[in-house]
C-alpha cells in the first residue's frame, strides 16, 4: 500500500486540528461545566396544570431561601407563559421549560439561552445574561401554522435595580406589544 509522505503529514495535521477542537470542547465540558441542556427529566405534558411545579401560580421567576433564581416557563401554542418576565443581569439563572402540547424550541437572541422544549420532558438551562435590555424569547421550532406568532418578552435589568418578585408571580395574559 502506497501513502505519499506529504499526504501522511497532512493527515497528522488534520488529526491535530480536529484533536485541538475536541480537546477544547472536552475541557470546557468536563472542567468548566459548559454543557448543553441535557437533564433527561420526564413530566406529563398533558397534566402540567395538576403538577406541583408547573401549576399556574408557580410559573415565572422565583427565588428560594439560598438566593437561587429559578424561572419556570410553559411553552404552548402560541406563546411562552408568563408572557413577560424580569430578571437580573450578571446573575446565574436557571430556566426550566416544559411544553403543554407539541415540540417547541426557544432562544433569546444574542444570548446562549437556547433549548428545545420536547413534550414529556423538562428542559433546564442555567446561564448568566450579561447585558441589561429588552429581549424577545422566540420559538425556533415549527409548531403549527401560528408558529410565527410564538414569542414573549424578557426584561434584563441591572442587578442593583432588580427586586425579587413576591410569592404570586405574574399570571400571564399581559399584552406583549
Amino acid at each position, binding site marked *: 500500500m502506497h501513502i505519499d509522505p506529504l*499526504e501522511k503529514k497532512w*493527515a497528522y495535521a488534520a488529526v491535530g486540528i480536529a484533536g485541538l477542537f475536541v480537546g477544547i470542547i472536552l475541557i470546557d465540558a468536563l472542567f468548566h461545566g459548559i454543557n448543553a441542556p441535557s437533564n433527561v427529566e420526564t413530566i406529563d405534558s*398533558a397534566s402540567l396544570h395538576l403538577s406541583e411545579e408547573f401549576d399556574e401560580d408557580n410559573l415565572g421567576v422565583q427565588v428560594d431561601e439560598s438566593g437561587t433564581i429559578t424561572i419556570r416557563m410553559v411553552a404552548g401554542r402560541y406563546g411562552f407563559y408568563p408572557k413577560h418576565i424580569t430578571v437580573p443581569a450578571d446573575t446565574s439563572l436557571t430556566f426550566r421549560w416544559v411544553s403543554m402540547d407539541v415540540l417547541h424550541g426557544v432562544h433569546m437572541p444574542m444570548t446562549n439561552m*437556547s433549548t428545545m422544549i*420536547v413534550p414529556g420532558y423538562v428542559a433546564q438551562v442555567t446561564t448568566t445574561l450579561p447585558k441589561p435590555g429588552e429581549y*424577545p424569547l422566540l420559538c425556533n421550532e415549527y409548531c403549527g*401554522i401560528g*408558529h*410565527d406568532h410564538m414569542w414573549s418578552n424578557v426584561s434584563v435589568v441591572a442587578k442593583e435595580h432588580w427586586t425579587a418578585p413576591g410569592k404570586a408571580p405574574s399570571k400571564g395574559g399581559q399584552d406583549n406589544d
Partner: protein
Amino acid sequence: MIDVVTKKLAFCHLWVAFGAFLLACFMGEYQVLERSGFIPAIESPSVYFASVSTHGVLMAFVLTTFFIMGFGYVVATTSLKQPIWNPQWAWAGFGISSFGTVLAAIPLLTGKASVLYTFYPPIIGHWMFYVGATLLIVGSWLWCVIMIMMMREWKQANPGAPVPLAMFATAGNALLWLWTSAGVALEVLFQLIPMALGWMDTLDPGLARTLFAWTLHPIVYFWLIPAYTAFYVLVPKQAGGYLFSDEIARAAFVVLIVFALPIGFHHLYMDPEQAKGWKLLHGVGTFVVSLPTFITGFSVIASLEIAGRLRGGKGLFGWIGSLPWRNPMVLSVILALLMLILGGFGGLVNASYAMNAMIHNTAWVPGHFHLIFAGTTVIMYFAIAYYLWPIMAGKPLFSKDMALVQLWTWFIGMTILTTPWHVLGLLGQPRRISGVEYNSLLTLAWDPYELAMIFGGLVMLGSACLFVYNLAMTHRSQEVFEGEIEYAEPIHPVTDLPEYLNDFTLWNKVIAGLMALSFGVPILQFFFMKTFGSSAWGF
C-alpha cells in the same frame, strides 16, 4: 459502453430527480419572498409551510435518492463492466420509489402534511405522506441490494483484484444507506404511521427525535458520497491528470461511512431527552468524520495540481490558472471546494457542542446546509449530469457555454443567498418562520439581508432553469456524440491492497458495534424510565 437497460434506468431516475429539483427551486424562491414580508399579497403561513415541507421532501429525499440510484447504476455497469444484477429488481425499485413519491406529494401539495420533511411528532400529518415517504425509501433498498450484489459478483469473478474505486464508493454508500434509513424507518413504522392511522393514542417525541437523529447525519453523507466519488474518479481525468492516491481515497470513504453513523446526536445537542455524556460522545465522533473531508480536500487539490502542472502550469500557484476552467467538471469541483471550505467552517461551529447554543435552530442552520448541500453536493450532481448526458444520449451537450454560465450563476447565487442567511442567524432570526411578526426592534436589522436573499434565490432559480433546459435540449439534438466514461487512473497503480480497503464485511461489523455503543442505551432508556406519551396534534 453503457448498455441500453442501464441508459434507460439512469435517464428515468435522473429525470425524476431533476424534475423534482426544478419544481423545488421555484418553491424555494417563493419561500424566500414570502417570509421576507415585502409583498403582503402573498403572505400565507399555510401555503408557506406546505411549500417548505414539499421543498424539503423534493430536495432532500427525491432529488438525492433518485440521482444516487441513477448514477449508481451507471457507475456499477461501467466500472465493473458487467450488466445490472437483476434489472427487474431495479425497475421494481424505481416503480416503488416513484409511487411513494406521488403518494407523498398528494397530501404535501394539498397542505395536509405540512409537518416538514423532518416530521416533528407529535404534530401528525396525513397518513399517505408517511406511507409514501416509506415506499420511496423501500424502493431505494432494492438499489442497495443490487449494488452490493454486483460488487460481490465482481469480486468472485476477479479474486484478489482491487474493486474499482468508483464501485467501492458506490457499494459503500449502499451499505451506508441501509444503516442510515433504518432509524427513520423505525420511527415511521412504529410511531408515525400507527399514530396517523389512529391505531395508537400517544407516542414519545423524545424517542422519535432520537430515532430521527440516527438517520439525520449519515443521510447527508449518503447525498455527499456521489459528489466525493466524482471528485476522486472523474475530476482528475477531466482535468487532464491522475488521481493522487487510490488507497487514501478508499480509506477516506471507509472512515466517512463508518463514522457518519454513530454521531447523530449533534442534532440533539439542545434536546432535553438525552444526557450530556452521550452528546459529548457523538460530538467527538463528529470531529472524527471531519477527517475524511480534510483528506479529500487535500487529495482532490493534489490531483488538480498534477493536472495543472502536466498542462504546463509553473510556480506555486501557476498550475491553478492552467487548469481547464472551461471544462464543466473542473469548474464544478473548484466551486464545490470553495463552498465546502466555507460550509465546513460553519459546520465546525454547529458541531461544537457548546457553541451550538448560539446558532441552534436559527437562520444560520439552513444557511449552512444550503451552502454545503445545494452548493457543494448539488453542483457536483450538475457536473455529473453534464458529463453523463452526452455519453448516454449519444448526442453532444446542447450548449457548453450555457453549462459554464449555469455553474457560475449557481455559485454566485448561492453566495448571495447563504451569506446573509448566516448573518440573520447570528442576529437571532429563527429558521422556519413564514414571516416576521415579532414586535421587536431587533427585527429591523433583518430586512436588508432578506432583500439580498431574494436576489440570490432569483439568480439560483434562473440557473436551475438553464440546467434543466440544457439537458432537455440535448435530447433533441440531431448530431451524434460518441464517448465513454473515463475513470481516473492513480499515479501509483494499486498493487497489494489490504482486504479491509477492498471489502465492507469487516466495516459492517464495526458499524454494528459502534451503533450499539452510541445508540443502544440512548434508545433503550425510553423503555426503562417512566415516560409520558404525547397525543397527536394537528398543525
